[in-house]
């Protein structure tokens, strides 16, 4: 009984997030078309991709999680046969799926296009690292949203993460294995790239796991 | 609150809407119909039984008392109501039991004289 209830809740959240998920993927795909404009196009495409990748995260945090709490729709959800932990876990699951699906699709799409089309691929490793960073950002935002339950803090987090993008780009450009090849025509995949990427993913997953543990101890729902 | 309900029920009995031997609706059904609490109906039924207007048979339900003495029972109830009112008024007027007794005797004498 509980399993199907849980599934219904996750499905509901994903149902509500579907428009933005599709929108993000569509924007992302379109943006990749910009690479035809040469190296400027590549950077433009990257920026649009970043926005497209980030938007489900922002939407999910602001609307699906915070908004539901502010709107008191969470009371309606909690009036149904579900425990507070199941509710919170369901939100987390839906949020992760809602973010990771467009994230994965866009990453795959970008890779495919870079390998199929005659465009300078030097930027790809840096792009991958950056893409991993967006997942890390998402984990952070999710943690801030679900633990603080404060709109102001989430907005602050969004600002902080946006600003940190430039710092991050600066950082990865300074990794010799990555920065020196960015303007090249061919992607250079050194082990460092994969190590950093793996590190990013692991850190993001760790944050989410810790978040789950912390949420399990929440006593008051309201 | 239950007093008003008792009045309503007695009216239905008096107008033969609910004739002698008629099975009264179950407490919950009547409560839903009249839109009062179950407990009010319970109290009303209890009081009416005490006054002999209705009869409750274990496990079967409540029924309007048989006709023969029903008229008497209703009169009995009316008498009780009036008596209660007289008692209340006498307190307000400050009449003693002896005063009431005297006034009652005078009235009864008057009635007997009129009937002759």
């Amino acid at each position, binding site marked *: 009984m509980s399993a199907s209830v849980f599934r219904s809740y996750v499905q509901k959240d994903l149902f509500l997030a579907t428009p933005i998920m599709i929108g993000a993927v569509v924007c992302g795909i379109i943006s990749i078309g910009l690479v035809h404009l040469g190296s400027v196009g590549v950077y433009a495409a990257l920026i649009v991709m970043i926005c497209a990748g980030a938007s489900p995260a922002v939407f999910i945090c602001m609307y699906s999680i915070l908004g*539901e709490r502010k709107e008191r729709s969470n009371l309606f959800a909690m009036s149904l046969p579900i425990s507070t932990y199941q509710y919170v876990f369901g939100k987390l699951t839906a949020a992760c799926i809602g973010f990771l699906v467009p994230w994965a699709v866009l990453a795959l799409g970008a890779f495919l296009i870079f390998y199929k089309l005659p465009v300078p691929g030097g930027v790809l490793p840096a792009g991958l690292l950056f893409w991993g960073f967006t997942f890390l950002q998402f984990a952070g935002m999710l943690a801030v949203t679900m633990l603080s339950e404060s709109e102001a803090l989430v907005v602050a987090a969004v600002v902080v993460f946006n600003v940190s993008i430039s710092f991050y780009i600066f950082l990865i450009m300074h990794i010799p294995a990555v920065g020196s090849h960015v303007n090249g025509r061919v992607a250079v995949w050194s082990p460092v790239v994969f190590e950093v990427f793996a590190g990013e993913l692991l850190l993001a997953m760790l944050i989410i796991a810790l978040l789950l543990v912390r949420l399990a101890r929440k006593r008051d729902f309201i | *609150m239950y007093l008003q309900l008792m009045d309503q029920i007695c009216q239905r009995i008096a107008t033969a809407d609910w004739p002698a031997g008629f099975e009264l609706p179950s407490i*919950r059904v009547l409560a839903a119909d009249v839109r009062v*609490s*179950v407990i009010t109906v319970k109290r009303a039924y209890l009081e009416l039984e005490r006054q002999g207007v209705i009869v409750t048979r274990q496990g079967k339900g409540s029924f309007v008392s048989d006709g023969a003495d029903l008229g008497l029972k209703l009169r009995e109830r009316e008498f009780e109501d009036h008596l209660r009112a007289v008692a209340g008024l006498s307190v307000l007027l400050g009449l003693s039991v002896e005063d009431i007794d005297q006034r009652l005797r005078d009235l009864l004498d008057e009635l007997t004289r009129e009937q002759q």
Partner: protein
Amino acid sequence: MNQPVFEMRDVEKTYPYFHLERLHLRLAPGQIMGFIGPNGAGKSTTIRILMGLVSQDRGEVQLLGHAMPREQAQAKRDVAFVSADMRLYARIPLAWHMKFVASVVPTWDAKYAAMLLERFDLHPEQSIRSLSFGQHMKALLLLALARRPRLLILDEPMTGLDPVARHEIVSELMEIVTDEGRSVLFSSHHTQDVEQISDQITFIDRGRVIESSDKEVFLERWRRVHAELPADRQLPKLPGIVDVSGAGRVAVITTKAFTPELPAYFEQSGARVREVQHMTLEEIFVAEVMSSRKGSAA
């Protein structure tokens, strides 16, 4: 079926500006409990603790035999809850909500739901966003009623409802208890409704349950006594006298411990009792709260 529908024992909850004290509350099946109290008295907090939405600091809560808040998922299968501050999902139509609840609660009665849609004059394809406050309230009540729950908990359900809608909700509530296995707990400021349909009345003020008893017994204990008092006489100080007011020689005594001997008692002190009145629940409510406020100010 002799197990109480819910039982709260020694429940306590402390907030920065509010404290719920040693709460004892229980409801037998097949009854309607009316829950009244001033704003901020603790009605919503008590209801939320009962529903497992808020954890009590101390004490035990049993809802349909389940320990709360631990077993709330199981308990809520048979308990429907509507609160005036609850919201449905704004951008989704009512029909979706109905399907959602039906898929999650096996006791959903689709035919009853359809009938309620018509009675409440609601259009299932309309998005929640476009509903007025009263319509939204009716939608919430529909979703709860159509679940055919064993216990229906309502926190200020009449908020924003026009008299016709209130009339219909009262009818539906009464319909519920024609089944003696089903019960209702509702809190309301409409004391008239509470007085009319409740079997039990619970009165809470400032985090304390002042009264929880049979409605008829409760109402019978309160009276307003109008008495003439000569200037040189004093009224006896009896326990249960909540208020004495009045102008000149006529005193109005409000008591919550009325017995048939009371007027005679007053007469003995030289007062002339002119009238003894029953009180409506609203009058009792105001008298009780005012007296406790005065008491604490003194």
